[in-house]
């Protein structure tokens, strides 16, 4: 019997191939960091490899004895599953902005994944500052380092009640994927008024002062920076 290409198998093979291409693209371009954390990065190469194997298997078995139809309904189903591939590939690279702040909880509380010992030694990071606000031991450790120089990166956010020379330097903390993002913020004072707009990425250098339950950074330099290649922090 003469074997022919099955439109259904070719169609599903191409769909799997499109998803495989997306995962390889995310891997090669580094854009995976816009969607998942460094902790779950492994799903990207795993997905790429599994999807490639599946695509190869599907296309290898696409020649059949009896033609299999690709109905209009199935065509639209394949299109619906391919739609996210088109969206992710076409959209410009972007990260969660200040808009999401009101829809997320803060990192305080889950920040205890950083120990007081980590906060007490080494360079002070954004995660250390956020974590210190969630435990007494952490805050004690940070207070012992009051006046030390820090360098932090984040995006600008402002809320009613902040003085003109103050901003909330903000980062999102992502454990698995962006859907679980929580926000971490630190108040920065002595910022040139009006120079930076909400969602602008800035690098801040200054001295850190834990005051009561709040942590301030007295900025000595604030400069605009491009969005970091890994915009989300991982605890």
């Amino acid at each position, binding site marked *: 019997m003469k074997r022919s290409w099955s*439109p*259904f198998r070719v*169609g*599903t093979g191409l769909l799997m191939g499109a998803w495989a291409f997306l*995962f390889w693209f*995310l891997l090669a371009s580094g854009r995976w960091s*816009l*969607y998942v954390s460094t902790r*779950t990065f492994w*799903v990207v190469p*795993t997905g790429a490899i*599994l*999807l490639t194997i*599946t695509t190869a*298997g599907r296309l290898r*078995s696409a020649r059949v004895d*009896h*033609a*299999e*139809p*690709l*109905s209009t309904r*199935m*065509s*639209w*189903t*394949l*299109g*619906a*599953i391919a*739609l*996210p591939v*088109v*969206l*992710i*590939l*076409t*959209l*410009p690279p972007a990260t*969660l902005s200040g*808009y*999401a702040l*009101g*829809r997320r*909880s*803060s990192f*305080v*509380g*889950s920040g*205890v*994944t950083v*120990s007081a010992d980590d906060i007490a030694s080494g360079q002070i990071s954004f995660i250390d500052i956020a974590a210190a606000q969630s*435990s007494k031991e952490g805050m004690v450790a940070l207070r012992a380092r009051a006046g030390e120089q820090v360098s932090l990166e984040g995006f600008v956010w402002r809320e009613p009640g902040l003085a003109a020379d103050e901003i909330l330097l903000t980062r999102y903390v992502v*454990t698995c*994927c*962006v*859907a*679980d993002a*929580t926000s971490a913020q630190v108040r920065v004072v002595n910022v040139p008024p009006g120079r930076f707009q909400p969602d602008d990425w800035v690098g801040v250098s200054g001295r850190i002062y834990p005051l009561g339950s709040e942590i301030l950074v007295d900025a000595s330099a604030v400069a605009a920076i491009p969005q970091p290649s890994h915009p989300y922090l991982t*605890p």
Partner: protein
Amino acid sequence: MAIDVVRPPVLPPRAGSTRRSALIVFGALAAVAIWIRVGDPEGTAWAQNFFIVFGSLLVEAMPFVLLGAFVSAAIEVFVPTSTFAKLALLPRPLQLPAAALAGVAFPVCECGSVPVARRLAQKGLAPGAAITFMLAAPILNPVVIASTYVAYRGHDSLWIMVIGRLVLGFLVAVSVGWVVGATTKDELLRPRSDDGDLDLVEEGEPRWARFASHLTGDFLFMGRFLVLGAAIAAAVQTFIPESIVGRVANLPILSLVAMMGLAFLMSLCSESDAFVAASFTQFGPAAQLAFLVSGPMIDLKLGALYAGTYRKGLLRTIVIVVFSVTLVGTLWVQVVFG
């Protein structure tokens, strides 16, 4: 030896019709791509938020769905039907706990367990046991236990959360399996008119080709519902502020219900939800536990997957039993531990 359902040869499609529908769909996708480039929807804050959350849910979940489809296809092609027939002969009091504990050997998220449970039921495992496995696997697995431990390390409620999640997750999963009870496979699984389109197998095809067919069929079947569920979850995360549930944080029963509702709406992966739960410091351990137990069993993303896989009655049963047993269990925790 596994038996495939070999469908009779179908009439050849009209080549023109196949080509036309494929071209229309391809054209629609191209139009979406052009609209995105020209219209710049990400210039709007809510659209940017929606697309990022939607994309992230899919990038993380798709490999797990595929892993689940691999296991499901392997069960179909390589595991003899008689194996499940023997398991089905075990007394139900043994079947359900064993099915729940099987999750320990299958450390994937909830999305991966759905196609496996469907295949297990199709192959003859008691439907109650298949459902118990599906609900327990995302909680009773080593990765989730470890992530819960890490998220609550240093909290006074550490062991309440870790042990409470394990024990209550086990009890809820077994309860649903027990309620599903004597349901037959046909009463459990939703009949699908297009089922034949998804995993067609030809007579005499080698095992690897049958494996590829079943794998692709499961991926397609789950994939469309995953896309739908991720879109709904992303819309909720875009438009509904989490702060609305904070108002009931101190109310005894409402706080539990609110956290279960929030878990339903957020549709988080069970391997990361503990970090989010721990951030709701205004809620007590019982409410956080309600979030951690009910979320991996029923949420918007899973609701779409269940609705496509099972009959309406079962979806209703899962929702009612999961919410009521979790509520009762966490009320006990609230009374005992505050």
